[in-house]
């Protein structure tokens, strides 16, 4: 039980009756780290967060926060503050009441309560709202109050359970930055659960992508983006999603990837393992739309091809183009000012060494 980590999770197992949600879960989070638990619904991220908070009982394993074994502790004794998806503000109390209720209950002295409330309101800029009720606040304001309620607890660890999911897109973008600024200012450990990969990429020091109760990859956003460890992670991160081409990989001095009438030389691609001599079936080659070169740039690329434009989706800053490569629908991005039309013949290309290859079991090779 070292003090090096803010949060240590050892061999955690969580189950509802016969259904096992998490098993053999191990995770260490450093002090001041912003860790994001990312995944689709049902992957176990909320379950993990609730276990750390102490709101869920575990079947096996231990949880340590700041060096203390809190596996059997009530949430209030774990040194955590939590922000919920639906804000969960006490509707009949004023903002000030919401912020101070927990403190008053714990017997904190009045002037200390005042001080903490004032400090939190200043940081979150909710001072003018103190006398209002939650029903009179906007979504963004409510979320700030919810964060404030966690702030006044004067704890080291903050837990966020999909706090921005109930807000509209613009508000989400604004509050995202505020949360990042908050983290920079307070430097607390923050664990953040979301299904939105953009939130994850922009906020996290490290991301833990979860699926089926298992962490697929635990790494910095940069590495996850560039070196996804399996096909699921590769497809989850990045918008628009990665293009996948199924085919066969023939090993050799220069491995060749073949699919239909496509022959792509994988020169320069970093393999994670040495291949045998036999060709590998069921290999998937992944290329991100933003790595696809267009027009003149494409001409000099290691692999290039002329394709027919199928659908054009103008988005202002850039335009998403769908074209057919053989039988495959291929996505790539072009400059927003370019006006392509369905049926146009264009040249695209890419450098295969920037792509990712996955074997038949969807692991990276």
């Amino acid at each position, binding site marked *: 039980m070292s003090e090096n980590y803010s949060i240590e999770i050892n061999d955690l197992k969580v189950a509802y009756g016969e259904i096992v949600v998490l098993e053999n879960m191990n995770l260490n989070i450093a002090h001041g780290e912003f860790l994001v638990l990312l995944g689709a619904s049902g992957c176990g991220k909320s379950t993990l967060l609730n276990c750390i908070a102490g709101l869920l009982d575990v079947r096996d394993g231990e949880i340590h926060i700041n060096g203390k074994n809190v596996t059997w502790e009530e949430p*209030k004794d774990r040194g955590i503050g939590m922000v919920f998806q639906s804000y969960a503000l006490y509707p009949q109390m004023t903002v000030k009441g919401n912020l101070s209720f927990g403190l008053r209950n714990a017997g904190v002295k009045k002037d200390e309560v005042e001080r903490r409330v004032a400090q939190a309101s200043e940081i979150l800029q909710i001072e003018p709202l103190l006398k209002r009720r939650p029903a009179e606040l906007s979504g963004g304001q409510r979320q700030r109050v919810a964060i404030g309620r966690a702030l006044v607890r004067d704890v080291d660890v903050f837990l966020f359970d999909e706090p921005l999911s109930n807000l509209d897109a613009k508000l989400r973008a604004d509050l995202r930055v505020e949360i990042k600024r908050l983290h920079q200012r307070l430097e607390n450990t923050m664990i953040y659960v979301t299904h939105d990969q953009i939130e994850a990429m922009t906020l996290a020091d490290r991301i833990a992508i979860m699926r089926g109760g298992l962490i697929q990859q635990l790494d910095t956003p940069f590495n996850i983006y560039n070196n996804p460890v399996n096909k699921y992670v590769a497809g989850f991160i990045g918008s628009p999603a990665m293009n996948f081409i199924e085919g066969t990989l023939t090993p050799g001095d220069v491995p060749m990837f073949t699919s239909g009438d496509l022959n792509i030389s994988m020169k320069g691609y970093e393999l994670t393992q040495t291949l045998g001599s036999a060709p590998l079936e069921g290999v998937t080659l992944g290329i991100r739309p933003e790595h696809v070169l267009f027009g003149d740039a494409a001409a000099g690329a290691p692999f290039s091809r002329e394709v027919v434009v199928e659908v054009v989706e103008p988005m202002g800053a850039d335009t998403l183009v769908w074209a057919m490569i053989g039988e495959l629908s291929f996505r790539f991005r072009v400059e927003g000012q370019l006006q392509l039309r369905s049926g146009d013949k264009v040249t695209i290309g890419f450098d295969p060494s920037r792509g990712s290859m996955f074997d038949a079991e969807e692991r990276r090779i």
Partner: protein
Amino acid sequence: MTATVKHKRRRLGLFRNLSAKIAAIPMIFTTLVVFVGCSIWTITYSFTKSKLLPVKLFTMPVEFQFPLSLFNRSEEGFLTWVGFDYQWNGFSQLINTKFLVGFAQYDRLLDASRNSRWAESVENILFYGVFSLTFSFTVGFILAALIDQKVRFENAFRSIYLYPFALSFVVTGVVWQWMLSPDGIQDAINQFGAWAHIGILENLPFKLMASGETVIFGLLLAGLWQGTGFTMVLMLAGMRGIDGEIWKAARVDGIPKWKTYIFVVIPMMRGVFITTLVIAASGIVRLYDLVVVLTSGGPGFSSEVPAKYVYDYMFARSNLGQALAASTMMLLTVVIILIPWMYLEYGRRKER
């Protein structure tokens, strides 16, 4: 071009509403004739002389009498009120025939020195109402909160607390009448005392029904047995409607459960409380079957209630005016309960 379109639309509009209107005729009939019309009739006639509509009584071996003939057929075959020919010649004529006696009925009703029975019944229903509401709300809430704690056999407990509500007041009255009589609980305790040689128990009286002072508690015991399940179910539903994340937030904040109930849950359940209160109160005002079966209003008139007063005067004592005046008073009470509630409801809705 536009003219034809407009015309067509209006025709369609009429037809569309026609089906709905036809379908709603029973409702319109009921509201107008029954609820509005009958109430107005009652209120109006409460200002009349009481013996205007004599009733032929028909006694039975049991304590119930009911009206049989209110009308006579005249020679021509028309229905006429017995006693006077109905002629509407305007108010002046009515007053001249001393048809309207003004508030005389109400005087008789409310003058406690001449009419202690009505005063007693009002006192009783007030006492019963306040006590019943307080108790059923408190106990109902506590039981609901306890059941909400993820107890095992939750369904069993809820079924046990609620089943009396499925019974008729007559059933409840019969059982409790016997249990509360000297042959019932008292006798059982006495016999147990004799058997176990506990002197105090042997002679312990449990005669709630015998004394005018305590008979109301017998009524309460029975009535609460029947009705608390109702409030409990509504409270439980209200509690379950509270977002689970609020509970989580309170837990993270370190608020103990009982405090969460008092400071967070109850304020959030204000709407449920008010609605339940209104429904329960309006049900209490109508209390009739239970009293008739359990105590017959006795001993004497000490457990008389307004609804029974109305029925007795209306059918047994042929004192229609009194009965109608009493009914109108009951109506007034309900209106007094309803108005603040409606004001709250509609006021709140306007806010949105």
